[in-house]
């Protein structure tokens, strides 16, 4: 019997594996995907972005998606039929291998959203069970163990820090960031260097970034990116079993007794452990609990509250862009614009909260970055003319050549709170099954109107910067369609077992040896990408588990 069995090897599970294995406990990690190392990762756009090599084929594993309308009715979509999926990376280290690593901490008010901003009609907003101060030491730990590079500046939304600066210097930036800083200065906006979970120098027995030009969506070939695999799993002797899909957890009335998994070839195995940690990413973790009903838990494991799967959240907001064209630039500026490889790395958090018409709103973060370098994708965006007609021949070739070689797009991403609502939750389908014969997850989607209102407010600020910089073709899209890679909730933590699944240490109220440590625990998500918070919380829970073993 192992001391600890962890289901899922991403940012939620790996800190536990790292901490517990390095403290001398026997740890096994079950990972559905394959193992890839730095030697395996490359920049093959066809494989990674066109053929989706890191996510399951939809004819084998899919989701059902119910999209709710404001009147409470919904439309059902079969994920396979509509090529709509919420997979983010089935491989050792999970989707942290493929992240861009935009790392922002949540801010103190994010931990007390309800007490700070009040109730929002139609939204299930609650305060967190812990404070920023309790998580701060772990945010700091992530900076040094995972490796966060950046430069702290004193801006009005800067959260309190226990150290003065990041442990690794900021990554090199493209010269266009100076245009951005100037525009912000003229607009009286505070430009912030974006912290990244990417090593700028050789450290932690990993290589520094070599500016490959292909970061987000791709595995890192130098180990600079702070994936759970590079930063944690390869630095401990936790046993990782790959191609292991966990389909069921068994329990008695008070503890998990065993988990069952299928190998790639469909053989069933089981694992026993003293403590089980579930971290399969928010949707899959809820799905597994709901699929693990037994006589003690007829509505799903750890679900006496009926809250498993509920209050699923994403990052609200959207994205926008503006184009810089050679015709409007000097030769020097053209050269600066086309300098590839270096990062843009600028953010705005000026409106992390703001007032409008006398009301205080929780706002968010805007990250700026160059359009992804994926060439086939960029060319495919040029297939249609101004009237929406498909082009071909010489006309198309001229347009592609001009667009790619004489202009460049600066994009922005808006992150604001996706308010939790009754109609946004995970279920399991009664009929549809995956290739293992296990009921597929049902993702019920509903966006709160305030999410769009805040997103619009922020996007308009970003547009001001692009205009000031001299960009053309500026547009943006704020919508209620969820980004599949920014998902949280489903197993809220809280003090009350009737309204939450987990206690403040992310242990199930119902089961004394089950922890859930991916983003499922988050009752609200803050207005930043989640990965840093997932890592930090998982390090926090690891300390709790160590304490439990020492009793």
């Amino acid at each position: 019997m192992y001391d600890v069995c962890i289901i899922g090897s991403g940012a939620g599970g790996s800190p536990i594996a790292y901490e517990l294995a390095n403290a001398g406990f026997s740890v096994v990690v079950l990972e559905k995907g394959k193992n890839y190392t730095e030697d395996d990762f490359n920049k093959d756009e066809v494989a990674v972005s066109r053929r989706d090599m890191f996510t399951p084929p939809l004819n084998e594993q899919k989701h059902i998606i119910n999209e709710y309308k404001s009147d409470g009715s919904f439309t059902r979509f079969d994920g396979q039929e509509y090529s709509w999926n919420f997979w983010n990376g089935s491989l050792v280290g999970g989707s942290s291998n493929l992240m861009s690593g935009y790392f922002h901490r949540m801010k103190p008010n994010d931990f007390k959203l309800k007490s700070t901003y009040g109730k929002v009609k139609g939204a299930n907003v609650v305060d967190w069970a812990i404070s920023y101060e309790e998580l701060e030491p772990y945010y700091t730990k992530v900076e040094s163990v995972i490796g966060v590079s950046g430069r702290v500046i004193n801006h009005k939304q800067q959260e309190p820090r226990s150290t003065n600066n990041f442990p690794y210097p900021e990554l090199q930036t493209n010269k266009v960031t100076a245009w951005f800083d100037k525009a912000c200065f003229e607009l009286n906006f505070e430009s912030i260097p974006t912290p990244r979970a990417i090593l700028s120098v050789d450290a932690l027995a990993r290589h520094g970034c070599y500016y490959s030009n292909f970061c987000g969506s791709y595995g890192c070939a130098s180990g600079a990116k702070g994936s759970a695999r590079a930063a944690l799993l390869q630095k401990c002797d936790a046993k990782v079993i790959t191609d292991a899909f966990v389909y069921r957890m068994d329990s008695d009335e008070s503890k998990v007794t065993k988990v069952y998994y299928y190998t790639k070839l469909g053989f069933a195995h089981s694992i026993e452990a003293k403590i089980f940690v579930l971290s399969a990413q928010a949707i899959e973790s809820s799905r597994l609990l709901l699929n693990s009903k037994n006589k003690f838990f007829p509505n799903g494991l750890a679900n006496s509250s009926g809250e498993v799967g509920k209050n699923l959240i994403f990052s609200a907001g959207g994205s926008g862009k503006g184009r810089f064209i050679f015709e409007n630039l000097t030769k020097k500026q053209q050269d600066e614009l086309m300098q590839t490889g270096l990062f843009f790395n600028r953010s705005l958090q000026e409106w992390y909260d703001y007032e409008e018409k006398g009301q205080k709103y929780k706002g968010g973060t805007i990250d700026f970055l160059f359009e992804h370098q994926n060439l086939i994708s960029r060319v495919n965006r040029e297939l249609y003319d101004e009237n929406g007609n498909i082009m071909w021949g010489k006309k198309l070739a001229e347009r592609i050549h001009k667009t790619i070689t004489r202009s460049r797009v600066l994009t922005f991403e808006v992150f604001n709170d996706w308010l939790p609502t009754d109609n946004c939750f995970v279920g399991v389908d009664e009929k549809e099954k995956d290739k293992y014969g296990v009921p597929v997850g049902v993702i019920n989607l509903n966006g709160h109107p305030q999410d769009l209102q805040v997103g619009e407010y922020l996007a308009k600020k970003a547009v001001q910067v692009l205009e000031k910089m001299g960009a053309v073709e500026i547009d943006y899209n704020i919508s209620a369609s969820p980004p599949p890679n920014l998902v949280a909730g489903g197993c809220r933590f809280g003090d009350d077992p009737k309204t939450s699944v987990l206690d403040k240490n992310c242990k199930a109220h119902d089961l004394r040896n089950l922890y859930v440590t991916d983003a499922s625990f988050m009752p609200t998500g803050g207005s930043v990408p989640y990965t840093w918070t997932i890592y930090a919380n998982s390090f926090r829970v690891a300390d709790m588990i160590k304490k439990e073993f020492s009793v």
Partner: protein
Amino acid sequence: MQKFSSRRNFLKLGFLSSSIFVMSGCELFSITTPYDTIKVLQYDLFPQAKKLNIDTSSYMSIIFHHTRITKEDKEFIKNGVKWLNEEAVKMHKTIYTNLLSTQREEVLTQIAKKEWGESFLHDILSYLFEAMLGDPIYGGNNEETGWKWLAFSGGKPRPKEMYL
């Protein structure tokens, strides 16, 4: 078929060399293959590839055999080839590959107005760009000619093998 010098090559092309029955009304008008049509069609859609001496049509063999391309997507390409030829027969009384370039342009303009036609052209162009602008390991972007045309240097490290 005579283009393929050996049985091995013929088998490798598989789906691409399978017969497509072009109908005129209820009558069988002609038999062609996806490969013959797609080769001409891709050069019509993007003559720049030919100018750069890039062969994009052979890449379609990878697509037709790819485990990650759905059966429905493969069928759609095959049907698109059939419908394109049937449009050619309807407009000019012969299959697409037998037409003059001005006539082929007329056929393309005609099908681009139809929902299936627009999707078909979109897919054929997308696969063409995968061949021309994907990693040279896939065989189309020979000596990085496609990348050089767009002053693109590609990402490193490069793949050591194709993802099939």
